[in-house]
C-alpha cells in the first residue's frame, strides 16, 4: 500500500534560516514524488517533482530511494515561503492519482 508521512505539522523558522520539510514514503514500485504548496487563500499548486530535478523558488528536493525520503530544502527562507506544504506520491502505470501526506505548515518569521 502507498503511504506518505510528513512528521511535522508545523515548522517555524526565522527569515534567512535554512528550511527542511521532511517526507517519507512507502511504495513497492518505482515512485513518482511531488511537492505541492498552498499559500493563504490560494488553491493547491505543484511546487516541484522529482523527475524534473529542478529548483523552484529556491526549493530543491532529492529522492533518496534507500531511505525512502523526499525532503524539501531551501537554504534561506523568505517570509513569502510561509504556506502549507504537501508531499505526494504518484501511483503506478494507469493510476496517476496522488497519495498525499498530512502536510506541514511552514511559518517564516521576520
Amino acid at each position, binding site marked *: 500500500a502507498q503511504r506518505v508521512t510528513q512528521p511535522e505539522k508545523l515548522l517555524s523558522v526565522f527569515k534567512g534560516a535554512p528550511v527542511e520539510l521532511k517526507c517519507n514514503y512507502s511504495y513497492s514500485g518505482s515512485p513518482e514524488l511531488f511537492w505541492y504548496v498552498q499559500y493563504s487563500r490560494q*488553491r*493547491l499548486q505543484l511546487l516541484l517533482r522529482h523527475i524534473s530535478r529542478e529548483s523552484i523558488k529556491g526549493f530543491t528536493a532529492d529522492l533518496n530511494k534507500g531511505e525512502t525520503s523526499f525532503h524539501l530544502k531551501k537554504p534561506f527562507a523568505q517570509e513569502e515561503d510561509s504556506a502549507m506544504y*504537501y508531499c*505526494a506520491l504518484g501511483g503506478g502505470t*494507469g493510476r496517476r*492519482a496522488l497519495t498525499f501526506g*498530512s502536510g506541514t505548515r511552514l511559518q517564516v518569521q521576520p
Partner: protein
Amino acid sequence: EAGVAQSPRYKIIEKRQSVAFWCNPISGHATLYWYQQILGQGPKLLIQFQNNGVVDDSQLPKDRFSAERLKGVDSTLKIQPAKLEDSAVYLCASSLLGNEQYFGPGTRLTVT
C-alpha cells in the same frame, strides 16, 4: 488558460440531507479527480475519471457517494444522505494524460 472551476464554494447542510458539487476541468484535460480533504489531513482520492470512464473509485463510499462525468468534460459529485463526518473540503483536479494535476479552489462542506 482558465483554471479548474468548482461550485459552490461553500455549503452548509443538515445530516441526512443531500448535496451536489460541480467541477469543470481545464479544457482538453482527459483525467479528472475528486479528492476529499478533512481538516488537518491531506487530500484523499475519492474517484478518478479518464474521459467519461472510471479509473479508480476504490475509496469512494458508494453507499452514499456517487459521481459522474457523462460527456467526458464536467463532473458532479453527490452525497446522499450526508453524515457529520462528511464535513470536509472537496477538491477537483484535472490533468493532461496523467501529468501535473491542476486543482480547483474546492468546495467547503459543513454538515450539522
